[in-house]
């Protein structure tokens, strides 16, 4: 097999992986602040994509306005979810909280098709679809733009943790009671992290929606993103980026070589990565090693 083909696979895989990481960062945000894994992140991506589509096509906003409005709506949605569903669950066993996010997932997966129908909608963000050649390598242009956007946003969110709000979020993720006692509004900080996760989901939804169309299948991103978050360590943004790159590259290379043999091996790469991570290094690449073993 020639080297060029492998490079092509690696680059395109890496770009897709960056977009996985973008969605996974939503999970990391919420886990960092409140130790809850949000199993509704996939469907929040779908909701975000539908909101952006609806702003652009139904309300006829121009693209540069539709995306921020969709983002803002998802920000509010995240705040609402935290206030209505998650806050009453504080102190409940982890089973209940996981069930709550799964319930939310079902709810959103029912809500979006009920409002917007089930047929896939094209989302045009004005990205050109023609192939891009670097040297002799074929690179998917929308992947390139998506990957770069994901990288930029990840950088921004890493910077966010250096600001005043970010320091509050970090304090809350360390210790609720201690944060309370120094005057941090813990509930608001957790709400903020949900809101940011919602906004991240909207960005992810916009990028993914412009590539594969806006429909229910966007919610299937959940498994990939959980794999990315777990491999990176649930509380590390840098880890999520690296894990996203790894999973994206592995998926594209493995599926290119194995698909002729077994067919659609792409779907199980994430599964095996989850399993291997849990067996070998449960706290992920960069996660804090505070897992209890009994």
């Amino acid at each position: 097999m020639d080297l060029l083909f492998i490079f092509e696979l690696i680059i395109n895989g890496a770009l897709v992986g960056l977009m996985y990481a973008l969605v996974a960062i939503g999970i990391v945000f919420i886990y960092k602040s409140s130790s809850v894994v949000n199993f509704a992140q996939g469907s929040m991506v779908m909701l975000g994509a539908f909101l952006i589509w609806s702003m652009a096509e139904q309300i006829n906003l121009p693209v540069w306005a539709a995306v921020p409005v969709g983002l803002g709506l998802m920000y509010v949605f995240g705040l609402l979810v935290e206030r209505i569903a998650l806050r009453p669950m504080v102190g409940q066993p982890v089973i209940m909280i996981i069930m709550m996010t799964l319930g939310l997932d079902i709810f959103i997966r029912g809500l979006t098709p009920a409002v917007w129908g089930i047929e896939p909608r094209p989302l045009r963000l004005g990205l050109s679809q023609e192939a891009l050649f670097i040297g002799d390598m074929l690179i998917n242009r929308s992947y390139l733009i998506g990957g770069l956007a994901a990288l930029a946003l990840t950088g921004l969110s890493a910077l966010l943790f250096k600001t005043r709000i970010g320091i509050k979020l970090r304090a809350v993720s360390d210790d609720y009671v201690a944060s309370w006692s120094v005057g941090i509004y813990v509930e608001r900080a957790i709400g903020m992290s949900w809101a940011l996760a919602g906004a991240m989901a909207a960005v992810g939804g916009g990028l993914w929606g412009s590539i594969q169309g806006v429909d229910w299948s966007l919610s299937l991103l959940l498994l990939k993103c959980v794999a990315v978050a777990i491999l990176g360590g649930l509380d590390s943004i840098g880890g999520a980026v690296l894990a996203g790159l790894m999973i994206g590259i592995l998926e594209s290379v493995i599926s290119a070589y194995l698909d002729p043999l077994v067919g659609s091996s792409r779907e199980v790469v994430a599964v095996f990565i989850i399993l291997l991570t849990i067996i070998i290094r449960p706290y992920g690449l960069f996660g804090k090693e505070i897992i209890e073993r009994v």
Partner: protein
Amino acid sequence: MFYRLGGIHHTNYQSDRRVLVYNFDRLQVGVVLVLALSAPLWMSKLWLSGYLLPWVVWSAAALSLNLLMGWAGQIHLGYAAVMAIGAYTAIHLGHAGVPLELALIAAGLASAVIGLVFGAAALRVKGLYLAVSTLALQFLVQWIIVHVPAIGGGHLATIQAPPLKVFGLEIHSEAGAYYAALAWCTAVTLFMINLQRTALGRALVALREKDYAAEVIGVNTFYYKTMAFWISSFLGGVTGAVLTLTYYRAVTVEQFSIDVSIQALAMVIIGGLGNIVGSFLGAGFILLAPSIINNLLNWFSGQLGFTLPVAWLTNIQMMTYGGLIVLFLVIEPLGLAKIYFNIRNYFLVWPFGYMKRQV
């Protein structure tokens, strides 16, 4: 009112150790049992095989999952996959000519072994990681069924179930299938009732409450966690086989998708963690809720004079279902069982509500 209690009077150990202490409770269980046994006589065939049969089997499934989640306190997001392993094993063995009883046991063992491998991987860690690893089990099993023709019968295939034979007698009627399912459900229920009173059951409860504390007082936590996984997966596998053999009569991969796993989880949590009555109530609620929601919506739209499109109906149904899970968790986290026991405890001492007696 019904219980007529002036206090509980035990004069010997035998009465103290009874499972059902009150006469009214015994009467209640007796009535339910008689109704269940005579159901084929007074229930229409549609209701029997369309509603009661799946309720009975799913109750068994909810009970088996409750053993793991309610008693041992471990989460499982891939229970449908465990059931699928059982179902496929039983069907393939049945086609190979193995008697049904042996096929069921083999189904349970296959599920238990595979379930345990995934459980054991995750038992090193807990909570969230267990959830994610069982989620991985779900996707892996689904993928294998779709992509290995020897197991799943090829892409999007449906495998017919072998004829239902119990001890050499072939069962054709709906009533026969119902009785087979009822027998399995009763067996699981009896097992769970007795489990609460054994050393194993107590060890599991200790484990759930606080695993350090359990370890300190000499409960081998790893052994009992493994045990919980093993038993629960075994029961789940047999239940999956019973479900396909008596209800679906054929097996496809969609019957055991991730949504079904969430459904099983919802049965346990809405019913009430660690509660036997709750598992029955939860299974009934989750199975009946969609059709009740549907009928209500149709009735409302009929009243308002317009018809709802079908695609819209299924989505609204899913939305209400998710909304109900959220509502239950916010309003009554202990589930339907808690509501049932609130009512029961109210009537237990009825005119004298100030006596807050709880048994």
